[in-house]
């Protein structure tokens, strides 16, 4: 096994004031390949800040973040964008599907900026949709899909580049319990298939699927001792 997928060392984010808001106090965490980690905490605790930092959508104000062995704090926008496009797949609570594009076109979007050869894109997108069980709804518009199906399209989009890290932000927040269970079952399968997954949620049922739980409260990240991993 190579370098850990995620290695946080004193990672912190303070929003400039006045007064300055320490949204994430210096946090350290190591996530190995194949881990399935749930980050829980009440709203306003700093979950979203952590998600944005892990997803390279925001830059930390302190500490270091090594993703896949690369120290991201030393990288410029070009390399951060390259990492986002290749090594990270993000699943949002609100799905963020383009309403005028079909399911397969939405998945194709994730291959637009990362140098995927044009010829291989369609097959990869179809494969990703197959993997989430939507092989027969590839040409459906998001407006004709159920919430659960939309989230599965979003997961397919996150998977299509075989990322090192699958980041899920409240993946079941907009779903009813049946759809939520299906989506969580899919994440379990993906983890079993080897994907490293970080789920950010306030829902204990969702967190229960993970093999590791990390809590965040008032910007302080902590890991219960009994959940230590092998």
């Amino acid at each position, binding site marked *: 096994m190579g370098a850990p997928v995620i290695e946080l060392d004193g990672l912190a984010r303070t929003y400039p004031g006045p007064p300055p808001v320490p949204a994430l106090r210096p946090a350290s965490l190591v996530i190995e390949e194949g881990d399935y980690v749930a980050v829980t905490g009440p709203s306003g605790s700093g979950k979203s800040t952590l998600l944005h930092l892990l997803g390279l*959508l925001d830059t930390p104000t302190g500490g270091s973040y090594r993703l896949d062995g690369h120290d991201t704090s030393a990288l410029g926008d070009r390399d951060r964008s*390259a990492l986002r496009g290749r090594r990270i797949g993000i699943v949002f609570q609100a799905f963020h599907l383009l309403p*005028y594009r079909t399911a397969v076109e939405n998945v194709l979007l994730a291959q637009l*900026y990362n140098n995927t050869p044009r010829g291989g894109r369609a097959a990869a997108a179809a494969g990703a949709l197959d993997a989430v069980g939507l092989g027969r709804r590839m040409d459906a518009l998001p407006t004709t899909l159920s919430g659960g199906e939309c989230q599965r399209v979003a997961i397919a989009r996150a998977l299509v580049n075989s990322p090192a890290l699958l980041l899920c932000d409240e993946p079941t927040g907009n779903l009813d319990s049946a759809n939520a269970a299906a989506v969580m079952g899919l994440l379990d399968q993906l983890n079993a298939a080897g994907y490293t997954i970080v789920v950010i949620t306030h829902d204990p049922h969702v967190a229960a699927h993970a093999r590791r739980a990390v809590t965040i409260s008032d910007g302080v990240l902590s890991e219960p001792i009994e959940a230590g991993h092998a």
Partner: protein
Amino acid sequence: MPSSATGLPSPRLAARDAAAEAVAGIVQRPGRAVLTMLGTVLGVGAFVAVLGLTATGAGQISKQFTALQDTTVTVEDNGPANDIAPPGTNPAMAFPADADAIASHLNGVTAAGVWWPVSGLQTGTFSGSLALSGAASQTVNMVAASPGAVRAMGLRMVAGSPLSTYENDAAQHVAMLDTTAAAALGISPARLGSDPAVFVDGVAYTVTGVYSSALRVVTGQSAMLIPENTALADYGNPQPGIGTQGEAQMVIATRIGAAGQVAKQIAAAELPTDPSRLVVTAPPGPQALQSEISGDLAGLFLILALISLLIGAVGIANTTLVAVLERTGEIGLRRAVGARPRHIAAQFLAESTTLGTLGGLIGTCTGVAAVVIFAASKDWTAILNPVYTLPAPLIGSVVGLLAGAYPALRAARTSPLAALRHS
């Protein structure tokens, strides 16, 4: 280009992908796209139509007038440098007695002769009979003309014959009338055999011919033509000098294309001792005529076209800006899947440029169609200069590119965090 730090290739957006995204962005809102393009369509269409219509119109006008204009040269007597004539009289004409013959020896001349409006009449009353003089008198322009000038005028005879060389040489009191003057003076063209006369200041002129229309000189006016020598004998030399309205002139009819050459030679041929006394007017070249006609009005319409282009640009800018604000979620998502700010800017710029280009294409087609339909309806030849017409769609592209610049900048600056929090 692989990145040194991560070993991953730099994110990029291939031109073909950018174009596909732009088209997809436009196609998803077709109604809005059409409305957005309207200003550009109108602007480019107006531009093409104005240039086409002025060229077509000018082409047509020059076609109508060139035939006559290109075959007419006029020479005016500007008077001698030193006027040594006694007071109250005019100096001798610049044109020699054999002016007609000299001119007709020039290559390309079909007819030429001297003429001038006769002045110096005592009362200027014309009548068909002596008894009626005064009461039923008419005012008719009396024009002295050499036989060559009569031929060069291109008269369409109704009755009788043109003034002859004999009548001129003998300074006979004869005259030609146009149909209007003849009718006013009570002279019937059908009865010329009875030698009717016109009395001018009590002097009788026998009417030898009546004409209905003329190509040169006496066009559109009622006139009485008398022989050159008769006028000289009765009324003296014409007053020289351009602007006196009475100066002697020579009208020369030439073969098509010969006018320019004749104009160069005629002054020296007629008056070798002082050619500068004669002022020669050659027909304007077709180019000069065309630019004269298209100048003012076309300028006005081009300004209107420019204004519609400006409105088109504002329309595209506005719609693209609205699209940027509407699609912040999409922008955030694209950033999350690896797009750099420049790729976001490129996408919106490509969208606005595509809109502008489409508008330009439709506008060009509309403009060309307008010119062709207009020309066809008038049985004219449509003239479209490819130098202006073919690149016209590019005007739309430039408008779209400029209009998209600010919205694209806004899109590129959109923070992905704010964008993803959206909705």
